[in-house]
């Protein structure tokens, strides 16, 4: 088997370890400290924010407008409508500006 094959296998193993690892650690504790609990409650906003902020900062007017419109739509619409409206603004501005 090629090196590529073994890198893919090893990459799959380490990826799975990250996905089961947090659970294996946390399931050893019967009770969760309130500070840990508060930290875990912050995980969705904290992690997902880091996937938005750097690309947003390095974007231009088209990207900023798309995110602003998407954020407004997100206040009331569902995710599909939000992604679609953000993408529409982005495509329009990228091809006109």
């Amino acid at each position, binding site marked *: 088997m090629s090196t590529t094959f073994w890198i893919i296998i090893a990459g799959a193993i380490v990826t799975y370890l990250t996905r089961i690892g947090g659970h294996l650690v946390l399931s050893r504790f019967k009770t969760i400290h*309130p500070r840990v609990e508060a930290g875990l409650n912050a995980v969705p906003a904290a*992690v997902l924010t880091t*996937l938005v902020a750097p690309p947003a900062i390095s974007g231009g007017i088209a990207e900023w407008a798309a995110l602003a419109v998407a954020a407004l739509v997100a206040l009331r619409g569902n995710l599909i409508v939000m*992604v679609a409206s953000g993408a529409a603004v982005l495509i329009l501005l990228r091809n006109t500006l």
Partner: protein
Amino acid sequence: MHSSNVRDFIQGARKSVPVVVASAPFGMLFGVVAVQNGLSISEAALMSAIVFAGASQLVGLELFGQSIPAWVVVLSIFAVNFRHVLYSAALSRHVMHWTPLKRVIGFFFLTDPQYGESERRSVGGQLTFAWYIGMATPIYVCWVMEAVIGAAFGNLIPDPHAIGLDFLLPIYFLGMVMDFRDRPLWLPVVAASSIASVIAYNTVGSPWHVSIGALAGVLLAAVLAPSQSERAR
């Protein structure tokens, strides 16, 4: 199969639709880049099928092309995926009623959107395995198929920048961030993670900005939380 399982599975599958749409370009992009970097179609499909983590797959490909030691490539994949440890720990609290086998299977499918939607689902009631797998199945099947399509028909895909494909996921993830705005400390957490991730992105570099930015928000919440609950009392 119990009828409530079927209902949950279908409800989960509905949640996969925007994810499948937003991630399709990346699934195919992965296939295209894989072939350009010397992988065969079956190797591209294998990687999508067993790693199943888009950003880390693309980072891995980038490094395959260069003469970099294998362990560095594997370490880079690990670094990009490190954020899953936080998802895994946070989701842990909602899956304790699953059997160990279901947990072993379930955590394999723990992608960013899978985690976000699972957190939302567990607010309203119990997070069932049927719902979770209902959401994961279409995402997984499409992801592997897209790698094959991209690898086989790579040169047919138009300029991704002009049609905005490269920015679809940030828009989607912003929507998920907004969905959690009712949580305590949401704004300070988002602010801390934004600032920390941008600083880390420009100093330490990618992919560590994700873990560093996330830890900043999580630690801030851990530090602030007890004082807030005391104030409430």
